[in-house]
């Protein structure tokens, strides 16, 4: 669809904050001024939201110059039209000169990154389908529906080597092939947007920034194996993603990409949006389907696999957001194009979220097969504050902690599996030397025991018992035999649980036991926390270099510090709660933890 060309585009902020400050009047004045100056055909005015300076709104941005004007009044608008748009002179007195709003989640890519999935995020207007179409959007759908047979679509995806991005890494084309082989009138296509791994938000960014890529992927998938009804299951914690999806679905329907006889091909497909209500386990495919059916979101045994008997007993395919967003690219550019990225068995690019003690946290997209070390030091800019790297946790709460000596491990499905971890949805948490690995394992167990749906006894009770043992160890009450108990319990949980949650739950414990066993032993046998984190095993002491400034004593919430002015202070260990506030406020480095 050809778009009109304009010499300038003006984005005017029309979110609730700016509207409350009179943005709609500003827009009316702007339009009449453009008309009066004969510019209406040359300058395009677009309403948008969240330009980011609402406290000084109403505001607008004029492109191609990219000048932001704030504190707009009708008089200011008249002046800007006369000066900026007619004469090309920036009107300095209304120009915003403060710190531009930074996207802290998705920064400019570094040398080792490749943006494919994220290429449109932050570039196009996600609430305008024309923006997506202008970037080759829905071209793949047209190609699939009009030039390819369903079987050819499956073959192309099979050849590309695309594997599920939700965590398990099952070949996507193979999944579709199973469902295509089912003889059933009714089949379902589900997009799993129930992203719940702590630290993972890549799917949210795709849904918020490029929702049509996911819709397009869903329609193509439905076409390939014969589904006419799709569901998107999105977690309720993502209200903005839900809103952009709703807008995208409405626009796609208006344009004829959803509904009856799509693009005149005779193929019907429509999508419904379903929201979760705060249950991590609903990211598991059988639990997700139970939730859509209106039940408690509990997993069930497989087989039968969803491709055979899924939603309401019908053949169902469940693909992750990022998997589906890859599909239009593969159809449009071909399997060979996709396979240029990644390794033999793990092809393409993958988004990861970086959190923890690195200089650049946020979202990245890299070719699979890049090493963990390259991610930590090249892409993420190394460890914060010049500290030393200790471990990287991949795969979310059911993943594992990987130590320094394994930093050469490539980020691909097989290699991560070989070191006891998983790809998961792509959450990476980097930890520096100040992290206690027993504490971290305790932390992840706290998560899984909380999120265990309770159906399988080993998962429900076993994770709780592991957590109790870890809590005891962190409190300095570890006993001989605890490590063996942890190992045995882990084994039972892995063997006795139905779904990925239980089967993966012990991974944080098993990997920290494997790579950081000495820390467990230090806690249990020497009653010492090597990283000086566990409150039950540390004490604070004031050195003789204390000048007696009284700052620590004033800040201590439990009044555990005594001492006179200009004399060395003392901490009463019985009152001290080991909060560390004294150490953080001491200007003389006279307080140590040991």
């Amino acid at each position, binding site marked *: 669809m050809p778009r009109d060309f304009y010499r300038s585009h003006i984005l005017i902020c029309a979110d609730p904050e700016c509207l409350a400050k009179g943005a709609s009047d500003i827009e009316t004045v702007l339009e009449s001024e453009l008309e009066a100056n004969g510019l209406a055909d040359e300058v395009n005015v677009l309403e948008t939201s969240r330009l980011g300076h609402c406290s000084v709104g109403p505001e607008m941005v004029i492109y191609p110059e990219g000048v932001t004007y704030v504190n707009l009044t009708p008089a200011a608008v008249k002046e800007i039209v006369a000066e900026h748009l007619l004469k090309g002179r920036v009107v300095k007195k209304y120009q915003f000169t403060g710190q531009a709003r930074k996207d802290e*989640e998705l920064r400019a890519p570094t040398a080792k990154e490749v943006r494919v999935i994220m290429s449109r995020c932050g570039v196009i207007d996600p609430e305008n389908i024309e923006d997506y179409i202008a970037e080759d959007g829905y071209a793949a759908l047209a190609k699939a529906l009009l030039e390819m047979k369903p079987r050819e679509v499956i073959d192309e995806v099979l050849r590309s080597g695309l594997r599920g991005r939700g965590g398990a890494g099952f070949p996507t084309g193979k999944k579709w092939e199973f469902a295509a082989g089912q003889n059933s009138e009714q089949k379902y296509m589900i997009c799993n947007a129930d992203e*719940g791994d702590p*630290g993972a938000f890549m799917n949210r960014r795709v849904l918020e920034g490029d929702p049509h890529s996911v819709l397009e992927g869903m329609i193509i998938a439905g076409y390939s194996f014969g589904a006419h009804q799709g569901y998107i299951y999105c977690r309720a914690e993502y209200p903005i993603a839900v809103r952009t999806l709703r807008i995208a679905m409405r626009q796609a329907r208006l344009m004829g990409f959803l509904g009856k006889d799509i693009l005149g091909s005779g193929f019907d497909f429509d999508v419904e949006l379903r*929201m979760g*209500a*705060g249950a991590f386990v609903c990211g598991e495919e059988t639990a997700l389907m139970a939730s859509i059916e209106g039940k408690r979101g509990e997993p069930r045994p497989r087989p039968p696999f969803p491709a055979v008997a899924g939603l309401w007993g019908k053949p169902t395919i469940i693909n992750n957001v990022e998997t589906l967003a890859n599909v239009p690219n593969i159809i449009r550019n071909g399997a060979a194009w996709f396979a240029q990225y990644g390794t033999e068995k793990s092809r393409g690019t993958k988004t990861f979220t970086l959190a923890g003690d690195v200089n650049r946290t946020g979202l990245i997209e890299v070719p699979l097969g890049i090493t963990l070390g390259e991610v930590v030091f090249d892409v993420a800019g190394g460890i914060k504050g010049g500290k030393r790297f200790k471990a990287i946790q991949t795969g979310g709460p059911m993943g594992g902690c990987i130590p320094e000596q394994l930093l050469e491990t490539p980020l691909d499905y097989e290699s991560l599996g070989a070191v006891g971890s998983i790809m998961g949805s792509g959450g990476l948490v980097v*930890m520096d030397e100040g992290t206690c690995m027993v504490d971290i394992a305790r932390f992840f167990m706290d998560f899984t025991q909380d999120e265990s749906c309770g159906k399988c006894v080993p998962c429900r009770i076993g994770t709780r018992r592991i957590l109790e043992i870890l809590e005891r160890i962190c409190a300095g009450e570890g006993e001989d035999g605890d490590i063996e108990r942890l190992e045995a319990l882990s084994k039972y949980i892995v063997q006795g649980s139905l779904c990925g949650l239980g089967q993966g739950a012990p991974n944080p414990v098993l990997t920290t036991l494997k790579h950081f066993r000495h820390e467990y032993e230090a806690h249990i046998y020497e009653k010492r926390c090597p990283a000086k984190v566990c409150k039950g095993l540390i004490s604070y002491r004031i050195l003789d270099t204390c000048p007696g400034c009284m700052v620590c004593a004033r800040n201590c919430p439990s009044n555990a510090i005594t001492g006179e002015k200009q004399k060395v202070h003392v901490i009463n260990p019985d009152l001290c709660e080991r909060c560390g506030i004294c150490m953080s406020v001491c200007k003389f480095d006279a307080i140590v933890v040991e």
Partner: protein
Amino acid sequence: MANKDLVARLTDINKRIGYIPRGEVEKLAKELCLPAAKVFGAATFYSLFSTRPRGAHVVRFCQDAPCHVAGGRAVLDAIRTTLGLEPGQTSPDGRWTFEMTSCIGVCGVGPVIMVDDDVFGNVNPERVREILKNKN
């Protein structure tokens, strides 16, 4: 036995009243032709639903690892002491409910807290006290 609208209907009730009272469970069960136990079972399964009254403001603290390693523990303590509540409790005056939440997906700016529907990132103990004071 199930009804595909059940979760959406419970979401509506939870939003409208702030929690899901027993009477509403029974009413919905009748309307959807489901046993009340099924409806109650779904209402207790999902963590965003509550079957007990909640405070006027719900403060949620993200308890997950990315926020934890970014200084979450001090933030948690600050909420505890400022509100005088432990996670899961509602203040006697009905003003506050303090809950833990799992990841809300804005880990790039952790630690994160949520007050009602607003998300606050990069918080520290001082910011927490300020945010809660402004809600008062």
